[in-house]
């Protein structure tokens, strides 16, 4: 898989970049984001660990390759490991008014965190919230077709939409949802390929002058990697945000209805977050997030406290402390402190 990913990423980079002269003439550009962090985490009553992490070094190539044809791809290199993946790589046709038709591998437009908020230079905390992993498997990208756009309904208010059809999450009966996103090409060609596609989308409203943003999302599809059986995973999402003069409140919830031969599983997760930007530089952040995972003995609540300092509009130093609470009550054994520098470039 690693070799395939590297080759795919290389081909995409070559296809998008071409010669420097061509790239310049077509407005193609190379961008991306990166972060480095130091993390202290309790691992037991008397144990802890401190380590450095190069969480992301992701390169993004994007540009107009013809009048109404746009290409974008992100090569993902995470945790300084030996795996390079293609997070997304798609072509978009933009010739229809207010409609974009994209095909390829794209980040599935479910909620806000998965598609819009997850890059570390955008996410106001160095970590993803609980629920945005085992209930919705962020960052989840898949291969298929995606239609998106917006319609203005009055001054500053937009109805926004995303609709998609993808190959879908794939895995074992009742399996952890995060593991279902590993629906890579090897799995699909190794017997997991079937005719069942997953589909869904997001419908939202943005009230520009007032800073409101509301949306509802759905994803549904057969997830079992045995094409002779049918078990459906349906995800419902709701998101809301309000921002005004540096103050931002954001919340997102996701509910999973996962079919399983041993009985359907209901899982839920989400977060609420508040931040206030002071003088364009300093930003205190608080977040509460949770995940309820019946049958997996992994329910958790987390309070996170953060302080950000923006070096520039696209780079910051983030300090955060996570207080974890589990089923049996307050557990300090896995609390963590993180210091991160990130930059979008």
């Amino acid at each position, binding site marked *: 898989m690693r070799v395939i990913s590297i080759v795919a990423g290389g081909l995409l980079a070559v296809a998008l970049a071409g010669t420097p002269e061509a790239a*310049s003439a077509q*407005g*193609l*550009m190379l961008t991306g984001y990166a972060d480095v962090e130091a993390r202290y985490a309790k691992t037991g009553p008397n144990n802890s660990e401190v380590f450095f992490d190069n969480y992301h070094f992701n390169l993004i190539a*994007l540009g*107009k390759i013809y009048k109404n044809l*746009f290409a*974008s791809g992100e090569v993902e290199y995470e945790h300084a490991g030996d795996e390079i993946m293609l997070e997304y790589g798609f072509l*978009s046709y*933009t010739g229809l008014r*207010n*409609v*974009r038709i994209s095909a390829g591998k794209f980040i599935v437009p479910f909620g806000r965190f998965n*598609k*819009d*908020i997850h890059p570390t230079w*955008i996410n106001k905390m160095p970590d993803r919230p609980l629920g945005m992993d085992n209930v919705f498997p962020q960052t989840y990208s898949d291969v298929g077709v995606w*239609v*998106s*756009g*917006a*319609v*203005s*309904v*009055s*001054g*500053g*208010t*937009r109805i*926004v*939409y*995303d*609709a998609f059809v993808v190959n879908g999450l794939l895995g074992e009966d009742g399996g952890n949802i995060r593991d279902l996103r590993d629906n890579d090409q090897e799995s699909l060609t190794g017997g997991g390929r079937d005719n069942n596609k997953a*589909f*869904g*989308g*997001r*419908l*939202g409203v*943005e009230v*520009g*002058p007032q*800073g409101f*943003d509301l949306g509802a999302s*759905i994803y*549904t599809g057969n997830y079992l990697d045995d094409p002779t059986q049918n078990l459906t995973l349906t995800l*419902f999402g709701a998101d809301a*945000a309000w*921002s*005004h*003069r*540096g*103050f931002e409140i954001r919340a997102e919830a996701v509910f999973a*209805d996962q079919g399983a031969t041993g009985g359907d599983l209901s899982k839920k997760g989400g977060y609420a977050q508040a931040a206030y*930007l002071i*003088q*364009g530089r300093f930003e205190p952040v608080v977040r509460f997030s949770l995940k309820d995972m019946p049958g997996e003995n992994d329910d958790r609540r987390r309070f996170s406290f953060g302080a950000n300092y*923006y070096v520039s*509009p*696209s780079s910051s130093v983030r300090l955060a402390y996570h207080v974890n609470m589990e089923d049996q009550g307050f557990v300090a054994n896995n609390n963590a402190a993180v210091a991160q520098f990130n930059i979008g470039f």
Partner: protein
Amino acid sequence: MTRMTSALLAAGLLGLATAPARLEAQRSGVEIWSQTCGRCHMPQPAIRYTADQWESIMMDMAIFARMTDDDAAAVLEFLKGGAKRVASADPVPREGELLAVLASVGPVEIPPPRSQDGAGATLYAQNCSACHGKAGKGDGAAAAALNPRPTNLADSTFQASRTDPQLTEAITNGKGTMPGNGARLGQDGVRALVAYIRSLGNGKGR
């Protein structure tokens, strides 16, 4: 939720995708820039990228941020006004060069109608107030997310420290993170804006 219900919802989304545009927003590029970009991250200053790069970025953002064609075009026009210039291909004087030219030809007469000029007020509301605020105090809706903060145009020290040609230069070609607006507003528009900005400082400028 049954598969059929899900299918109906998806069909509805697809139907909306093909709906005709209605009542397109009549907002300025700077307003849309501050409100749309600020939904996820701090709005990036126009001077960070070239005009070509902004064109690519705005195609990307129109997809990711789900913008209407008109909104994306308005933001692109705004950003191109202050885009980083490629020296060899740019016939427009860079910041400071215009001042040098003006200085070389002696005092420049800028029509000084220091009143609440209607055109200036309208242009200010459309192009400046999102960042500089309605009263010019640097406290517009987008100001909180801007780094550095927009200039307080009503401040008497600022007013006294800037000449009309300097204001003309800044509005025309941009200054710092502020894009230039000369190409869009034309000379008359820039003059009207200078006059209106002077009125914010109660005529204390030079």
